């Protein structure tokens, strides 16, 4: 069966639904282009902020067996310098047809707007507001993604500063109701959602009794994150059915990408997979996705999108489970 992986995201054509996740490779035009050549229909730059940042001392990233834990600390050259990187990437990506997503963060609501305005000079295809990095907590207090109110305030400020570039807002998993937060940012003007950022965690070295990351806590990514990201995407799709979602978190195989589409994602983020399977991961996942779709008689990613929300019904409902015996089992 002949597969078209091309996907329409906010009316922009992406050669494939795969998106290089922010913070993975996205520190230079060279690496952004490499990801596009490997099979990403869109590539996201490393989040940049208002001022240059050094990031955290090492260790900043660990493999704990079922996933990764990182606290890189958002090192970046600052928005002004970032513009050159983005402009170079935009030009180099044009012949490949892949879209450029410019990711950024800030310390205040107003600064989100200012940084967006600076990055807009490079004319990225999309802006992505990282309001969810768990690793700059102590510095900025609770991430803006933690509450619907703060998430909406940031969104509104960015849309006011840069109304003409579609805005993706990236949400965090460590909230009790991500659907409500998605509704709030959409109401405030977000054009799309990226879900999810990493889940805060901690790993301790027994011999020293110390947290291993210099930042102590970090964000969990990789395989352990997949059921969390699937659940978040599923709930966001229920909450804002018509808003496109970049489903990111733990996607390591083509099968994982299929699950993410079924949960309701329009595009699928790729991050830690390039550690687990090497730089070839992007191409492998693209080919596995195409192979799965064709072997199951689907001609495009759209064909499976949101499938998990269309449930079969039976004329015979299942029996309710029995009440537990009052005095425990025999």
């Amino acid at each position, binding site marked *: 069966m002949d597969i078209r992986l091309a996907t329409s995201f906010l009316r922009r054509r992406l050669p494939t639904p795969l998106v290089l996740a922010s913070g993975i490779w996205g520190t230079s035009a060279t690496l952004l282009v490499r990801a596009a050549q490997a099979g990403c229909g869109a590539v996201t730059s490393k989040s940049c902020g208002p001022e240059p940042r050094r990031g955290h001392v*090492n*260790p900043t*990233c660990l493999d704990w*067996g079922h996933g990764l834990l990182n606290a890189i600390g958002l090192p970046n050259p600052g928005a002004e310098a970032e513009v050159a990187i983005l402009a170079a990437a935009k030009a180099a990506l044009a012949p490949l047809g892949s879209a450029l997503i410019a990711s950024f963060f800030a310390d205040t609501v107003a600064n989100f707007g200012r940084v967006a305005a600076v990055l807009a000079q490079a004319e990225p295809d999309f802006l992505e507001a990282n309001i969810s990095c768990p690793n700059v907590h102590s510095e900025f207090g609770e991430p803006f993604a933690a509450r619907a109110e703060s998430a909406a305030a940031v969104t509104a400020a960015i849309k006011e500063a840069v109304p003409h570039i579609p805005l993706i807002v990236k949400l965090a998993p460590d909230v009790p109701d991500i659907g409500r937060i998605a509704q709030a940012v959409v109401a405030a003007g977000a054009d799309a959602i990226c879900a999810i950022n990493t889940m805060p965690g901690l790993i301790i070295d027994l011999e020293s009794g*110390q947290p291993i990351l*210099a930042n102590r806590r970090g964000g969990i990514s990789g395989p352990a994150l997949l059921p969390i990201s699937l659940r978040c995407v599923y709930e966001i799709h229920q909450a804002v059915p018509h808003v496109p979602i970049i489903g990111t978190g733990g996607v390591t195989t083509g099968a*994982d990408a299929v699950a993410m589409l079924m949960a309701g994602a329009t595009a699928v983020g790729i*991050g830690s997979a390039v*550690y687990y399977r090497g*730089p070839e991961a992007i191409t492998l996942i693209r080919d596995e996705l195409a192979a799965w779709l064709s072997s199951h008689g689907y001609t495009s990613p759209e064909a499976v999108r949101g499938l998990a929300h269309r449930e079969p019904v039976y004329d015979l409902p299942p029996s309710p489970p029995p009440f537990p015996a009052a005095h425990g089992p025999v």
Partner: protein
Amino acid sequence: MSAVVLPPMLPQATRIEAIRTENAQTKTLVLAARWQAEPGQFLLAWLPRHDEKPFSLVDADPVTITVAAVGPFTRLLHRLQPGARLWLRGPLGRGFVLGGQRPLLVGGGYGVAPLWFLARRAVATGATVTAVIGARTAADLLFVDRLAGLGVHVMVTTEDGSRGQKGLVTDAVAPLLAAGAVDGLYGCGPHGMLVALARLAQRYGIPAQLSWEAYMRCGLGLCGSCEHAGRLLCQEGPVLSVPLGCQC
């Protein structure tokens, strides 16, 4: 639903078994760990709540590193006594791949460390090994006598001429390449030296493998911090081939 997971790669606590002072600012630490690794691969050494830094393997069995004291972390390493603990992740990255029968090893500063490891492998295969070792002064030279003792033809250059030929390693390397005396170049050292070596290798059409340095963060091929010419040194390096792509 994900299938692919590697075994955990957390820092493993080990102890310093022996320490040798190489020169005023350089010490070699022999550690109580035994790995299988290639010359040119590196490890990450961690001191809890301080920092974690990369060092080239001088030997894998037992794991051995040679450390130049240039700042806080390396100074702390120099203070450690035998029996003290050090935490390691590794072996990491891709090392040198020996090819040909007349390798030329070119090292500057502590860049000689991985070449001393490579030389032992090369001699073991019966290759005819030449080495050009450079430093600022005679006092800064590393591994010269041990390389000679191995039967390697060693040429020395110092910037002040206090030992061997006065000048830079490239001054000694160019004629060797011109004469076609070697069939492969393996280099490690400061950035400027590597750039010059890459140019020489391409001019004389000799395949080269150079070990580059960059500030490393994740060490897993994710963050982009260690990029060199589009490659991630922590995962696809630190040794890269010239011309890129060819594995000589």
